[in-house]
């Protein structure tokens, strides 16, 4: 039988190769290992630039969830040096899981505003992104749009958004709780739920695609996707999606500013290459790296005064909402409960 024969022929080879793969994890002299939940494609340009400048080899494993669990289970033997993730809630969770260590660095402290890093140096924000409004380009009078207006019945059946449980939306709802309290936020969330044109699912870019497809007229999504779509980096189809929308930086009704989240990193508690880990973080707040965050990923740099990509600059001046990150992080559990309570994703 041919299948059996070929299995027989391949079996020893496969076993041998896999055992080689097992032991081939030998260490580079100068390396740094990253465990990340960030999209590999987004951070690769930064890591390549870092290797080029420092000669330090970077090895990555990109996870979806379970970053803290994996590092915690590996304990002292963990090869993880740097933990990278998005959303300050996730960063706070890493600290609470006890898998980070405090870092003292003049470079990091002078580059990153105090409210965008942990007071003890357990985590540092590296870039910012705003939660913005994508709207059908034919719509007018949206310049002073507030997040509260998403619940206005005039948008009945016209709103698109991803899952309410996604960290980006949880952070937005948590901020709303910080401003208006739980009850008002629940009513607001119910209002937004009533306005949904389709189930809260998919990704942020789907908002633009669905506006082009006529499924909805407005939606909430992250700012950098605008750059990725408009620049053509997402391919010609996404350029078409981006042409169908205009982008507004909403504020809260109290006029305080636009809701902003972060991507950031921490040094792992048992980092075997701690010096390199700190070097990497310091590189990521250098002018060059902050420029890459802006030009390759269309994020807002975390370093004050660093330039923003022209596509993002064209969205208008960003006024960051001043709610304390720690307060937002503390409201996450309540926010997630509200999402369940109003059946936002149902």
């Amino acid at each position, binding site marked *: *039988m041919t*299948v*059996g024969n070929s*299995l027989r022929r*391949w079996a020893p080879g*496969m076993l041998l*190769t*896999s055992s080689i*793969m*097992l032991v081939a*994890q030998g260490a580079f002299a100068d390396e740094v*290992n990253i465990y990340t939940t960030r*999209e*590999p*494609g*987004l951070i690769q340009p930064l890591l390549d630039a870092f290797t080029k400048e420092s000669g330090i080899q970077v*090895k*990555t*494993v*990109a*996870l*979806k*969830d*379970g970053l803290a*669990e*994996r590092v915690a*289970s*590996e*304990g002292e*033997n*963990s*090869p993880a040096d740097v933990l990278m993730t998005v959303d300050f809630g996730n960063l706070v969770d890493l600290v609470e899981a006890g898998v980070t260590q405090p870092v003292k660095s003049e470079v990091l402290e002078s580059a990153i505003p105090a409210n965008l890093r942990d007071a003890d140096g357990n985590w540092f924000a590296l870039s910012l992104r705003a939660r913005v409004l994508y709207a059908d380009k034919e719509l007018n009078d949206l310049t002073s749009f507030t997040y509260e207006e998403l619940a206005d019945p005039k948008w009945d059946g016209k709103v698109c958004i991803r899952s309410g*449980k996604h960290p980006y939306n949880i952070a937005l709802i948590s901020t709303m709780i910080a401003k208006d309290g739980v009850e008002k936020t629940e009513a607001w969330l119910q209002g937004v739920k009533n306005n949904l044109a*389709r*189930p*809260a*699912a*998919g990704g942020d*870019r*789907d908002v633009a*695609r*669905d506006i*082009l*497809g*006529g*499924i909805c007229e407005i939606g909430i999504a992250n700012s950098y*996707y605008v750059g*990725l779509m408009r620049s053509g980096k997402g*391919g010609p*189809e*996404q350029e*078409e999606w981006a042409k169908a929308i205009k982008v507004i930086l909403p504020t809260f009704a109290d006029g305080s500013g636009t809701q902003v989240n972060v991507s950031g990193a921490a040094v792992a508690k048992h980092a075997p290459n701690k010096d390199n880990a700190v070097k990497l973080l310091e590189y990521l707040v250098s002018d060059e790296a902050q420029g890459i965050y802006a030009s390759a990923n269309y994020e807002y740099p975390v370093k004050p005064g660093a330039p923003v990509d022209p596509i993002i600059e064209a969205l208008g001046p960003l006024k960051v909402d001043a709610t304390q990150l720690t307060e937002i992080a503390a409201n*996450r559990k309540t926010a*997630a*409960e509200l*999402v369940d*309570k109003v*059946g936002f*994703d*149902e």
Partner: protein
Amino acid sequence: MRSFLATALDRSSSHAGRGWQIAAATIAFLVVLPILTLLTIATQSSGDLWPHLISYVLPHALTQTALLLLGVSLIVVSLGTGSAWLVTAYDFPLRRMFEWALLLPLAIPTYIIAFAYLDLMHPIGPVQSVLRALFGLAPRDLRFLEMRSLTGCIFVLGIVLYPYVYLFARAMFLMQAASVVDAARMLGAGPLKVFFRVVLPMARPAIAVGTSLALMEAINDIGASEFLGVQTLTVSIYATWINRTSLPGAAQIAIAMLVVVVALIVLERTARTRQRYAAEASRARRLQPIRLKGSMALLAVLLCLVPVLLGFVAPALHLANEAWKRLSFAGFSPRLVEETLNTMLLAGTATLVIILAGLVVAFAARQSQLGLQILRVASLGYAVPGTVLAIGLLWPMAALDGALNRLGLVSGMFLSGSVAALIYAYAARFMAISAGGIEAGLARIPPSYDQAARLLGRTRAGTIRAIHLPLVRPALLTAALLVFVDCMKELPATLLLRPLAFETLATHLYGEAARGTYEDGAIAALLIVLFGLIPVILLARLSRKEG
């Protein structure tokens, strides 16, 4: 009834028999270890979680899950059994092609089919564009084509999971004695009556096995359900873990779900125990296919064409088209070569390990009632969502590493974050397919064969070599190919447990999908499908030979 002879033989070699059982029990313990870990995690406090879950989460999640399973089982049973009967009992143009083509959707992972159909059915996608142009409609007139719905999810899962039922039902139809069907026909039963009153009841064990495999894939699916916005139990387990940062709570729901799944399986099995499905020792005369002509032949072709078109041709063409666009836009990434190699080596090695372990467990199950219980325990991992199982594997592996370190055998991490971790995870997930499939094949060999061999002086091991292995080979290879395809497609455990700087096609695809650029992943997706096709085609050739 056990003969005196068999008892005597058993006694004479009970020592060897115990060896099998110890080996099988060790394997079962290892693959069930992550579930034991989950049980431990589940005993920790989850605070005020349950009142909240019961008020707001579980009612909806349970309804959605039940409807999803009901819908998927309707699709997989009707498509799988119907098409298997058509290509076995009738002869019509293209029948021989359909025999294998009906298996093709197996090559497409659920997370890929969901992406593909969202693209295809989107207002700006091809289907709606054509419909609108034909009938002069506005985008909002076609809302019923929204894939982000329970119906959409049932459709995409059903259309790629029906081959599990097709595979097992067809094997059963091929084995069934033609005489029964002939008798029914002679007694004046029409083709529908023959199918529903004779064929279907006789094939019930096979349909049950195929359907339970398909439903376990459906209940544990996270790729398609989450992406299409269906709030199943698995999605809730996930949200509990991530949003409420309550791993104990997530483990509690997962264990509760496992209990329900096991209860359902036991219920179905008990309902069947009073019926007997004796296999003939000598192979009965095969069913002679009836030649269909004219409109009936056309109907048969159409009925077989629909699942192949929807479950394979349409999504594969879409992927090919997207991949072509990406190739001209961004070029072929050389990483893909290495990733393809990683995928194939990993799936190949894992399959070998899982099949060898499955053989041991299945032989133990043949030898005693205890062995059968061991097999069932070893199969539990298939009823747990992949991510949850992988989480349950983190700590046992760390503990094993610790033990190896203390013994001075290795230093640092050995299992954790290695390829071996992935193989372990796959074994814990897919042992059900391996051991279960082989056991089903062994069950068809009458015990009298064993007794004859032993009387002729063969040892127990000799009997296995001379009698069992040759006879069980088709079932063994079928199991191997199914396991291989499943390992290739596996995403959640691979994502969590893989080593640094190690990517497979599935994780590459995930990386692209995470950015919302599934189109960028089209080439990787197409490669998964293409390489997944190889075992599927082998499987098809095998089932033909077996026939």
